[in-house]
């Protein structure tokens, strides 16, 4: 199960909407071994694409060095799908390389089809474990704060 606070959840959805129609991507870091997604970091999608995302390699190194210095790990790795459902694609599964992370997918498809902007169409927010090519969906619990 992924437990995430409302503010971080909202920030991920807002990021996905802002970058639509390109895929948005980022992480939420937390103390190693804690399973607490505490520090949201939006990343630039170096692919700048509606169907692909990739962290820029230089920014990726800077991000990991920062996490190592702080004894953090990527608790959540998220990206958006902008014309398909919030489910890992074959590419997502093949490239998933953090077996300990929660892989969050959000889909801006319905929201965009409803006209985007401030409309209330849902933005599905789902979480998965991806280990050795196996995808397991897990429950997402949104709490006011992690406490």
């Amino acid at each position, binding site marked *: 199960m992924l437990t995430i606070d409302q503010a971080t959840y909202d920030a991920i959805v807002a990021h996905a909407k802002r970058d639509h129609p390109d*895929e948005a*991507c980022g*992480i939420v870091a937390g103390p190693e071994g804690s399973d607490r997604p505490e520090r949201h970091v939006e*990343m630039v999608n170096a*692919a700048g*694409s*509606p*169907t*692909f*995302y*990739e*962290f820029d*390699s*230089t920014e*990726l*190194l800077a991000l*990991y*060095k920062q996490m190592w210095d702080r004894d953090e*790990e990527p608790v959540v*790795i998220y*990206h958006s*799908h*902008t*014309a*398909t459902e919030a489910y*890992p*694609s074959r*590419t*997502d599964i093949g*490239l*998933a*390389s*953090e*077996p*300990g992370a929660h892989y969050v997918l959000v889909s801006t498809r319905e929201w965009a089809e409803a006209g985007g902007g401030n409309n209330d169409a849902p933005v599905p927010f789902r979480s998965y474990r991806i280990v050795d090519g196996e995808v397991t969906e897990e429950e997402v619990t949104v709490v006011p704060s992690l406490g």
Partner: protein
Amino acid sequence: MSIEVRIPTILRTYTGGEKAVTGDGGSLAALIEDLEAKHPGLKDRLVEEKNGADDLRRFVNIYINDEDVRFMGGLEAPLSDGDQVVVLPAVAGGAV
């Protein structure tokens, strides 16, 4: 000669769980051969064959002293004693 190599979580099955290992070699290719001798299986996760020659895998990033080796000649990138090498899988994916 000793070069420290930072190993990402997903490849630590090859290093007995170690986060960092040491190796040597005057180039990245030589370092990878040395690592393969000590940690069999590692090379195949870093390198693939393209047109009959070894090449870095597209979705693995390797850095020497914080610089992406793709800007330093790839597998031919030179190494010196004390260099710091980091291996990080790309964080990437997409809808198709």
